[in-house]
């Protein structure tokens, strides 16, 4: 194994590595020992607390599955609503007319600079004050509103970056054969940009799924994390067990999405049929942070 940081190792380096490995292993074992002994002392390892998740389906069918359904419902609704909004905003930001481009830019930058939780709290109060949505449905509406406002602007940047990532020759060739601006966008740029954006959109789904948990913790939205709370109340304060199960589900779901995104990205980069323009997970991280990296990185 060699990298830019170190060479292939000789006998001395190998001996040193073994020492490092041993020291690290001892440290890791000490940490695990501390965790388990604390858990044991507090009685959190008792089988009674973990039993509900392994022996009967009740915990799964009453708490976890409905929670997961709500998580997925909020995430899917948010994507479906945010996608077209994002596409419109993203294309508007590329407009030749300043009166279209600048307002779209302000909207996008504004909503990217604000925490999703603030948008969700705003949404909850908004529905309570100005609409007659029933109080049971309000948390879902608020969570989806917050997610849509934020993610529409992130997706707008993804769309913009996707279009900008295409080689210039594409629009030059389209203009040379006499296509109008809207034909150029509709027939040439967008179809290719959508392909290039796919991995980025799937990566953004991970962010959305993670953000739904905010609704459970702050807005009383009955999603997966909230069901961990309910369960630990019902099954005799098995906080550690409930949180572990819920965390594992989140990890599995998001890990599947992340892996799918990287598979898609690798596949698109290999493919000979496309222009080779791809937006990956790193680009999405930049875009989520607002302002700094964004589309400019794509040409680097």
């Amino acid at each position, binding site marked *: 194994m060699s990298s830019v940081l170190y060479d292939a190792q000789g006998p001395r380096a190998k001996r040193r590595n073994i020492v490092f*490995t041993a020291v690290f292993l001892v440290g890791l074992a000490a940490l695990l020992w501390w965790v388990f002994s604390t858990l044991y002392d507090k009685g959190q390892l008792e089988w009674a607390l973990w039993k509900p998740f392994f022996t009967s389906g009740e915990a799964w069918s009453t708490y976890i599955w409905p929670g997961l359904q709500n998580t997925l419902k909020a995430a899917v609704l948010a994507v479906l609503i945010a996608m077209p909004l994002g596409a419109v905003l993203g294309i508007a930001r590329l407009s030749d007319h300043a009166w279209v481009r600048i307002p779209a830019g302000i909207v996008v930058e504004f909503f990217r600079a604000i925490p999703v939780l603030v948008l969700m709290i705003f949404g909850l109060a908004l529905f309570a004050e100005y609409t007659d949505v029933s109080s049971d449905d309000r948390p879902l509406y608020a969570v989806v509103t917050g997610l849509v406002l934020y993610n529409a602007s992130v997706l707008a940047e993804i769309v913009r970056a996707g279009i900008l990532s295409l080689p210039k020759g594409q629009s030059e060739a389209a203009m040379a054969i006499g296509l109008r601006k809207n034909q150029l966008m509709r027939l040439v740029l967008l179809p290719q940009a959508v392909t290039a954006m796919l991995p980025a959109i799937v990566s953004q789904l991970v962010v959305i799924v*993670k953000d739904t948990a905010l609704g459970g913790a702050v807005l009383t939205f009955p999603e997966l994390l909230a069901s961990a709370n309910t369960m630990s109340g019902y099954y005799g304060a098995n906080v550690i067990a409930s*949180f572990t199960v819920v965390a594992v589900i989140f990890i599995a779901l998001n*890990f599947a999405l*992340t892996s799918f995104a990287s598979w898609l990205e690798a596949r698109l980069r290999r493919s000979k049929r496309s222009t080779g323009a791809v937006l990956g997970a790193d680009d999405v*991280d930049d875009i989520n*942070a607002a*302002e700094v990296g964004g589309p400019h990185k794509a040409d680097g």
Partner: protein
Amino acid sequence: MFDFLEDYDLLGAFWTTVQLAVLSAVGSLIWGTLLAAMRVGPVPLMRGFGTAYVNIVRNIPLTVIILFTSLGLNQTLGVTLGADDFETINFRLAVLGLILYTSAFVCEALRSGINTVPVGQAEAARALGLSFNQVLGLVVLPQAFRSSVGPLANVLIALIKNTTVAAAIGVAEAALLMKEMIENEAQLLLISAVIAFGFVVLTLPTGLILGWVGKKVAVKR
């Protein structure tokens, strides 16, 4: 129309937000650097640990981590982080949660910086007869750090926005104050505008300045 704002400690809440952000930024920079060192180092066990940590933590919602520090670590296992009163404990737990979460992203930002350095740079340095320490200290790491500024700035901005999650365990920062104000006053749009403005003031200049610095120092290839 702005009178009611005087009844609330708006600046105090945003000061808590800033404190959360700064303390977590310092902590996650340290832990994230250690993780990055493990992930790019030659020891397989440490590499495996770094990779596993990053992949697990990145896929858990921050809300789960923060809520767990309070309900799990504090209320179930009795971890207090050396504080006595409820407020300080929750503040420190929130910082701990933010550090654990953000360091995974710091690690990836640093690693992406190292990955921008072509292997040819190290090979050329070795061909000139530089020692291992010289290759790393004079050639590779300076380039890697300069390329990491941009990604690290992104992580910092995401962190500033993520401090609001501390509201879930009752830390009196800006989002919690917003919730309280909305419940007590009939000024929804005004309150939201003020809080939103506060966050724009925190994130936008940070992004613009660090983004400029990042572009300025990045190695052009």
